[in-house]
């Protein structure tokens, strides 16, 4: 019995060392690369979902959205987001071309499309905890200096420093699932290194090809005490979209 205990202890320690060596063998950049490989890949996508916005007093509002996105290559994504409800923001539509190269907002009440300025990308979109910028964000080694802070049996912990000097954030601390290589949580720190926002993955789907897709995420603004939970209710992938779909023409259409 004693030998068995010793064996198991040694085996456990050895497994731990080996696991550690595997982990040590992965740099933060490699973890980011693997995460990217494990992301569900699609050319085009349509998501219909629901947002629940909760303010600092605990009051909640529901918003329904439809989102279209397209992989433009070079880590760039074009996206259209339209609010379907509530009435005061119905059909307000955002067009984000190539991860923020150009952004437009269509407000039906004004019957015109406005080009949005650079810093407007940091504004919140239609009362959510998301900024326009957050909608188009991806976490690549090209955009962040990264460091492996530590790990446990289930997760890696990375620290990311934005390369963009105009970023609102001093750093991001990211918790990455060791097995499936998706981020479970990201803490966003402001320029004074105070925790500002958190992004949590509440529900994830693992697909047959081993990639993952988020089904429910929560975005919290800790300074304001507000929170937005986004639930993806209907997802369609690789749908046929016209070459000029991601355009100011499309966001003015009565229905998407």
């Amino acid at each position, binding site marked *: 019995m004693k030998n068995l205990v010793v064996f198991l202890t040694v085996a456990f320690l050895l497994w731990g060392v080996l696991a550690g060596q595997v982990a040590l063998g992965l740099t933060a950049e490699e973890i980011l690369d693997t995460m990217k490989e494990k992301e569900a890949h699609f050319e085009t996508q349509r998501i219909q979902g629901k947002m629940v916005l909760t303010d600092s007093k605990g009051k909640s509002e529901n918003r329904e959205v439809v989102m279209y996105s397209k992989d433009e290559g070079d880590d760039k994504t074009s996206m259209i987001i339209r609010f379907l409800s509530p009435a005061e923001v119905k059909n307000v539509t955002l067009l984000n071309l190539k991860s923020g190269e150009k952004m437009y907002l269509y407000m039906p009440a004004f019957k015109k499309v406005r080009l*949005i*300025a*650079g*810093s407007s990308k940091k504004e919140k979109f239609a009362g959510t905890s998301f900024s326009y910028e957050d909608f188009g964000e991806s976490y690549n080694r090209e955009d962040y200096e990264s460091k492996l802070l530590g790990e446990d049996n289930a997760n890696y912990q990375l620290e990311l420093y934005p390369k963009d000097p105009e970023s609102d954030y001093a750093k991001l601390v990211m918790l990455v699932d060791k097995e499936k290589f998706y981020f479970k949580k990201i803490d966003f720190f402001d320029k004074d290194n105070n925790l500002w926002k958190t992004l949590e993955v509440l529900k994830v789907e693992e697909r047959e090809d081993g990639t993952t897709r988020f089904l429910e995420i929560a975005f919290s603004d800790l300074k304001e005490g507000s929170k937005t939970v986004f639930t993806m209710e209907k997802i369609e992938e690789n749908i046929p979209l016209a070459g000029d779909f991601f*355009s*100011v023409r499309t966001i003015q259409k009565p229905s998407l």
Partner: protein
Amino acid sequence: MNRRLNIVGFLIALVLGFPGLALGLEWSGTVTGKASYQFDTSDFDYGVTVNALSTLDMGEGYYLHADLSLKYQDENNFRPFRLNELYLQGSNAPWDRVDFKAGFLELTWGASDVLSPVDVLNPRPFSLSMDSESFKDKIPVPAVDVEWYFSDTWSLELFYQPYFMSNFVPSFVKEQMILGSLASFLPLVPEQTSVTIEETAPAVDFLSPIWAVRTRGSVGNFDVALSFQSGYYLSSFPYRIDVTQGEDGSTSLAVLSGYPRRSILGLEFQGFIEGLEGVTVRGDLAWVFPEPWIQQIFVNGSPVSTASILDEPYWKASLGIDYTHENFYINLNYLLGNPFEEGENISPYLYLVTNWESEDGKWKPFWNSVLSLSDGSMVNILGVEYKPKENWTTSLSYSVSSGAPQSRLGGLSDGIFLEVKYSF
């Protein structure tokens, strides 16, 4: 003609609206209550507007869109029931690269945020308010608008309007304007002066329509559009005023007015400049070519004045720059001419819009200011928007003007305004 079209629109709305309700069409809209108090005149005004719109998806890229409003206000209740819009829309229809709208349309041209000089396809109802809601209020016109997307980023738009419709200006305002224009050389006592105005609408029909063409697209960081409009001024200009002075001291004015022809060459742009983070530049330029317009004044049958009201081509402009930082927004516009100024009356203004939104998005204090660069008169509007709950918005503002009574803006009355809006 306007009244007949409105009745036609009303009947169409009834025919479509009630079956629409019966068919369970989805309607959305707003209920807006407004109240204002003018300190100078102790005038209290109030009103309620119900606006409802619905879009019926007819399939194959075709839609039927209806936008109706029911408005009650204590005075100057311009068309209590209004058909705002009613049109058939084709999206990628009838051809893939073509969109169109046909019916009673409200179109917005121009990139600038305030008082675009190219946004003159639709006439407007009368308002003394300086808020953005009033600026976007328009009267729909029967028209067809077709846009052909000949590339992924460029399009060509054609606008065709076979009936003329004018701005709505209440009679008492027209009379005040006539009296004001004569005040410099003819002393008139308003209480002893009667005014009759006869307006002649221009001969617009299917073969002699109002029309416009615009091409727009992207050039680098800028979206630009070039347009040409061929139509008429939407407010009338007197061409003959007969003044008859009675022996009892009374005066009667018989005014004949018309709508001069005009063509407008327009340029619109909006974009950003690399290195100027947070700054967006927007602007519209209009080069207006008027039909020469002569105004003659007769006193007791004898000509006393002949003046050229419109003569040479002239510029109007709205050039703006806006800056956004966190929750703070500032927009500064240079205006050359306001909607009531044409020809030699054009004058420059600065228009400032600033607001700040609270972190929870519920409070938005704002300060809007208009400064006449020609005489220094000014209007300042201070206010706050508050969103107590989902779909509810309230706004309270205080407006104060400065400058001589005859200056561009000094004559506007100081007042307080309250608005409550519910979206459904």
